[in-house]
């Protein structure tokens, strides 16, 4: 119990950021019309690709002869990039279909 309290206390700023983001995530999309559900899902999918930054850090700080780390990190970078790039491109394609013809 005390251990958890201390942990929370030490990271209280990060926890604030988490809580505020949770509320913000809920508020921001709570009135999305149902046609946009799929593109929104896809856009959100691209955004969580931000995990690629972790992969870059892992790679960038690995010792140059630590091959297991390098190989796993390399894989992680590739997968993360596909998530980000593919996600944004596919979302853009969807939205192009949806709206291109409205105007």
């Amino acid at each position, binding site marked *: 119990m005390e*251990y958890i309290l201390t942990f929370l206390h030490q990271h209280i700023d990060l926890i604030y950021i988490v809580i505020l983001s949770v509320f913000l995530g809920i508020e921001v999309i709570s009135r999305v019309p149902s046609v*946009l559900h799929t593109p*929104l899902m896809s856009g959100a999918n691209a*955004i969580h690709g931000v995990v690629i930054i972790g992969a870059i850090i892992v790679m960038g700080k690995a010792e140059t002869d630590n091959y297991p780390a390098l190989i796993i990190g390399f894989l*992680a970078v590739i997968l993360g990039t*596909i998530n980000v790039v593919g*996600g944004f491109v596919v979302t853009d394609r969807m939205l192009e279909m949806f709206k291109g013809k409205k105007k």
Partner: protein
Amino acid sequence: MGSSILSIIYLVGSVTFILGLKMLSKPDTARKGNLVAAAGMSLAILGTIFLYRVNDAPLHNYGWIFTGLTIGGVIGVLSAKKVKMTAMPEMVSMFNGMGGACAALISVVEFDHLIKLIKNLYAPVADDHLALQLLESSTSRGTVIIILLSLIIGAVSCAGSIIAWGKLTGKVKDFSFNGQHFLNLGVLTLIVGLSVWLVSIFGTSPGTGLIVFYIIFGLALFYGVLFVMPIGGADMPVVISLLNSFTGVAAACGGFLYSNPVMLTGGILVGSAGTILTILMCKAMNRSLKNVLIGSFGGGAAAAAGAGKEQGNYKEISLNDAAVVLAYANKVIIVPGYGLAVAQAQHACHELEKQLEEKGVEVKYAIHPVAGRMPGHMNVLLAEADVPYEKLLEMEDANAEFPTTDAVLILGANDVVNPAAKSDPASPIYGMPILEVENAKVVIVNKRSMKPGYAGIENDLFFQPKTSMLFGDAKKVLQELLSAIKEV
């Protein structure tokens, strides 16, 4: 200086994510929102590569990093550009799985790193008492918990997404057995138990720790498979949205691990927005999330399908008669459904529409929000066939127009026009708003048989005197109808 700038870059990145999500949820700004978020992401990635410092030293292995980025970028662009519009949900699922895998792999490397550190401490050369204490302290325990969370959630999301992809492409069949839920619960308990144990022992026996870690990894992957396996293929969009928010949480764990605020906010935003989105998706189909996950009718649809009891009589209409009815109408509304997508009949449908318009018939489409198998499915489908956007009526507008419509042509839709949603409280779709086609003068229904649709229930509409059935595959029927109308 560099890291100050990086902080600002990350802040800008987070703000673009918030704005991006906000704009994505409004039709007018959605596309721009996506670009805003993408720009922020690029900035954050470039900033990390060039400005990130580990103990004041810049990153290295640039060769590997750029090669990885290039390979990933090319694959990402190509697959996203090549994929057919109607196959987008499975594409999104695949991308999501990769994000989950990325998070899990990061955990693997970081845990390995941690274990090495601990082993060094035990080696006789370095008995740095202080560092040992540090490792045993709450901070390092917290680190292990976060690494584990990221691993487990990432792995579940990855494995689950691959199964979801498989189901949507037809490569994986629905599969459930008695006691499935108990097995799932058992595996989950095992994962949690092992994790707790690992947290308590990793500092003293790093060797065992590493093994346990990989066991947990394996179990998490297995759980991902178990989690998605029994859920009906038609429910996959909801499942993907849920796994999407899982991956968001996994990414946020990474943010905690590196005290990296852009990962943290990006991940959490997706985690919470994704969860709400999942719930909204369920609501649009008038179901609860629990209902989807336990698969109360999603999975049982196929089974119930055969059981449809005959109820009254339906009447059929010949192709030529249907052609005459449509050609001589003043206003025709087409109701597309899942069947149209299955038959890939969107182009034939657009041809029919043009042919009718040439004959002076006013043709419109009535789009139900959950027609098809993903939100916006019909919009995407018809957009692919170049149907002008103005011809698509949203549900409310369509319902206002049916009373003045001469003929409604239903192409492979079923649940979205089922009057039981309004009249029968016992029906599983009761309460879902539907397209009230029975207000039009004549209703022509095209489908292949009298089998029910997604919800696995009988449709009274087909037995009403106004309604006539036009059996056959949507594409074939439309092509024949087209030539018949040309001859009228």
